[in-house]
């Protein structure tokens, strides 16, 4: 079985500060890792994804994430947040062994103080 843990339900940071949102996962087979963002009253949008290769992947709007296999982590980072980054962020995993079905974490609600 595969699972995703996002330990922080809510995170508040000041505008201009750096950000890390945590994600840990378990899987069988080859993992495919994703971060999605949900703005108020909208569906989810892909921020970035990791399939293989360079463990640091770049996404939209200055976001990046690092795949650390030894730690089973895929934390999301941003060097300097903007108030418009306030949203809910979901980490997700799929794997070949699970028929590529996506399993989502419970999400982290980010509030950026202007």
């Amino acid at each position, binding site marked *: 079985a595969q699972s*995703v843990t*996002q330990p922080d*339900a809510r995170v508040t940071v000041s505008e201009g500060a750096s950000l890390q949102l945590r994600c840990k996962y378990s899987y069988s087979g080859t993992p*495919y890792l*994703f971060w*999605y963002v949900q703005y108020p*009253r*909208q*569906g*989810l*949008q*892909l921020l970035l*994804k990791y*399939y293989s290769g360079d463990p640091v992947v770049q996404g939209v709007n200055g976001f990046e994430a690092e795949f650390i296999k030894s730690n089973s982590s895929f934390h999301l980072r941003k060097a300097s947040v903007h108030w418009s980054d306030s949203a809910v962020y*979901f980490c997700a995993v*799929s794997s*070949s062994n699970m028929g*590529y*079905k*996506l399993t*989502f*974490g*419970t*999400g982290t609600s980010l509030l950026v103080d202007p």
Partner: protein
Amino acid sequence: GGIITQTPKFLIGQEGQKLTLKCQQNFNHDTMYWYRQDSGKGLRLIYYSITENDLQKGDLSEGYDASREKKSSFSLTVTSAQKNEMAVFLCASSIWGAETLYFGSGTRLTVL
């Protein structure tokens, strides 16, 4: 680009009522999904469909039926609405495999 359209945006029903949610996509994607989003619980997969006329149960299929009438549309039926299933229902589509999911903006279900 494409779009996923979910109708209705808000659905209010009575306990025990049968309710249907609809989803249309113009990406020409093979695979479509229905997820339920509860506050603090993330997204849970209800049903998915790999191609037209295919249906696969997800982790939360009990109490729901689904129908993939054609490649572009995927419907979800709540067979007997209960108050504890008030949530936002999200439809998504993708090319089959570990590809990006594209989501609609959701249907918010309220059960009176």
